[in-house]
């Protein structure tokens, strides 16, 4: 038999119900990251960045390394939009080793640690590496997202990395991002 007085138990029960009612055990969330905005920028990367002629035929392959809610948005993007008239195909990879050639590789936040390995693997192939997590452009990604203090979504641009992969970024896109 418990020694706790009855009113304490009832108070505990009440508190539990109150907090539960407020979603403590719910899938309640904080202000959500708007992955739709991320996919919007990805679409603009596809739209504005120039790949070499050797990569301008066939489907546009959008690789995603790791798991992220952004995948759902990218799938919607692929279903509704074209990449300069080409079909967008999503290709998913679980590990850096699995990554094969694609036009754009989206590295989800959970796979940020693989950037260096990816860079070594891809070398100077014409692939645009986009990092979901802030700071990846400094570690070898071509572009990486950053949310500023006023919650405006931007992206860091590693211009030399982009050029190393034989890609061209136009001034329009540079205006939208932040050169590092």
């Amino acid at each position: 038999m418990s020694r706790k007085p009855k009113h304490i138990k009832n108070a505990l029960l009440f508190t539990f119900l109150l907090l539960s009612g407020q979603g403590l055990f719910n899938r309640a969330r904080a202000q959500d990251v708007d992955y739709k905005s991320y996919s919007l920028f990805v679409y603009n990367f596809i739209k504005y960045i120039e790949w070499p002629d050797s990569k301008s035929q066939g489907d546009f392959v959008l690789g995603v390394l790791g798991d992220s809610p952004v995948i759902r948005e990218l799938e919607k993007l692929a279903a509704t939009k074209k990449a300069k008239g080409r079909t967008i195909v999503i290709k998913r990879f679980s590990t850096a080793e699995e990554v094969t050639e694609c036009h754009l590789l989206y590295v989800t936040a959970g796979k940020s640690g693989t950037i260096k390995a990816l860079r070594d693997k891809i070398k100077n192939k014409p692939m645009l590496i986009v990092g979901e997590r802030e700071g990846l452009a400094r570690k070898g990604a071509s572009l990486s997202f950053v949310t500023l203090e006023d919650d405006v979504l931007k992206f860091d641009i590693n211009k030399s990395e982009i050029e190393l992969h034989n890609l061209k970024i136009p001034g329009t896109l540079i205006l939208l991002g932040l050169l590092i």
Partner: protein
Amino acid sequence: MISPFRFKFFFALLIVWGIQNAKAQQDSTRSKPGKDSIDYYDLNLEQLMKIKGHDLPTELESLINSLISVASKKPLSTRESPSIVTLVTAEEIKNSGARDLVDVLRLVPGIDFGVDVEGVVGIAIRGNWAHEGKVLLLIDGQEMNEMLYASTQFGNHYPIDQIKRIEIIRGPGSAIYGGYAEYGVINIITQSGADINGISVAGTYGAMKDGMARQNISIAAGKKINDFEFSIAGLVGQGNRSDQVYSDFTGRTFNMAGSSSLNPNNVNIGLSWKGLSFRGIYDSYQTSVGDGYDKIPPKPYSQDFNSMFAELKYVWQINKKITITPRVNYKRQQPWLTPQSDSVAAFNILAERISANLSLSYNITRNINLVTGVEVFHDASTELDTGHFVDGSKMVNYMNYSGFLQGLVKHRIVNVIFGARYDKNSQYGDALVPRVGLTKKINRTNFKLLYSQSFRSPAIENINQALTPQGIRPERTEVIELEGGYQLTRKSLFTINIYNISTLNPIVYYVVGLNTDAYVNFGHSGTRGIETEYRTRQRWGYITANYAFYTAQGSTEVPNYQVPGNSNQLLAFPSHKINFNASINLNKHFSINPSVLFRSASYGYVTNTNPDSAALGIPLLHKFEAQVFVNLFLNCNNIFVKGLSAGIGVYDIFDQQTLFIEPYNGPHAPLPGTSRELVVRLRYDLTKEKKE
């Protein structure tokens, strides 16, 4: 065998799980119509530049993620600011029907009020009497603390109708603000010209059971025209502290109804053009004293607190990374101003401060910021009546030099804030106060781990009335705080924090013999405790509920603050405090706003009126039982015409009668506050619609 309690618990768990799953399924079917359209992908460049990284914030998220700079100079969200912070909005003040700043601050965890002498009510924080120089009160950046004792005076004083936001640091702020911010900072930001954008008039009338409580009128005008912005606001009023009877320690009584004036007069002017800004504040708080310093005087006498503040500042943004801000301030005060009368000797001392401050903010990278600067001020104080300072002179002068540095590194794992301030004063020596803070917000959770040293500068009269020939030194405090916050839903937040305050050589006020008082650095004081708060903001309104607990745990060596026989509690302030404040929208116009304050038992000295007792007239320790104050205010917005709002309510419905207890074993018996008060408010904001 399952106990009934366990059965009830699991049954409750089952119900909750069922409801939450149903809700989750409902949520998953919701979509974002605007963003699913194909057009969304064809936004132009200008639109792309404004794309946000997160969903639209809820009202609560807008509040808790709003940027404030009170705790760090560099703006950070409240959940990442390196202090334990409470934000109070103009809407909350208006809805609650708060009569003055006391009503607003009492709802903040850990804040309480006590009486000093001569009818002056001062602030306490986390169980510590902080009236003299331990809590800095800023209005639009101007330090309200008077310079003779560094005190602030509460009760129908500061204009609350003009407040836009109050940022409260419930912890040390000396590393930024210097010697008056040892235990806390209350930063009041009034409405700018753009906020007023027209004219605003507000009137408050309050009636206690046996007399008028207040009749105040506040007027503000302001506008922003291109780069030029101006605001001018004024408050004039009359009030009374109480309608009750005060008894001093000798058993003499004084009926405060109609004779305990608290009359505010305040003008606040703000001008700005591009980076250049001017702020001027005139504040005259006129009181009548019927309780006296110790004994009730033959007749009430007047006592005024007059202040004038002026600031000229230029925010010079050299480039995106570097901002230099030079600032000069002038402060002129005649606090505790008392004319000669049959009741009391004259007190007329002028205190002036001229200060110059130069600060530099350098964004080394997007995530690394450095703020540094220097400040110099000159204090001068002049006896304007027949009195003189302890050294025989009519005037004293002090110089103070300080430098400060703050670094902020925002990292994915944790934000690190470090800083220090060094002050050197020509009279009382130097003080170096470092601080380090680790903060981070990760999705729904946030935490803060803070270590700060802080100090309290001796004020002019602390120096003048030093007990020992060695003089007075700054008192030093170490504070450790740990806060955790958890967003239960997008519309509700729960925070909890623990703290430990340890003050070495506090400046203690002593009454030495008859009519002689003095200050001395003595021993050790401090408290530790826990504070929790729950906030929710829904479509139907909002609720804020908090709980604060402190204990002295026998660490206070100052007999003046101690409760004999109870080493956990300090005089005047209850160990437990619970506040509940809600606003429920009845419809588009009407809201009903209840607030409840619970104070556990407290201790203070009272008059021994037993004529048979040998101790007649000698103060007796008394335990004041727990009290619950219930207030209710009905607010109506846009009544008849747009911008016109009216409210009516009752404070202290059950007539518990506020009592301000002296937090040190001094000369003053507990001072009554208001009894049940009927409050009526009317406000009209004539605002010109902004062109889109």
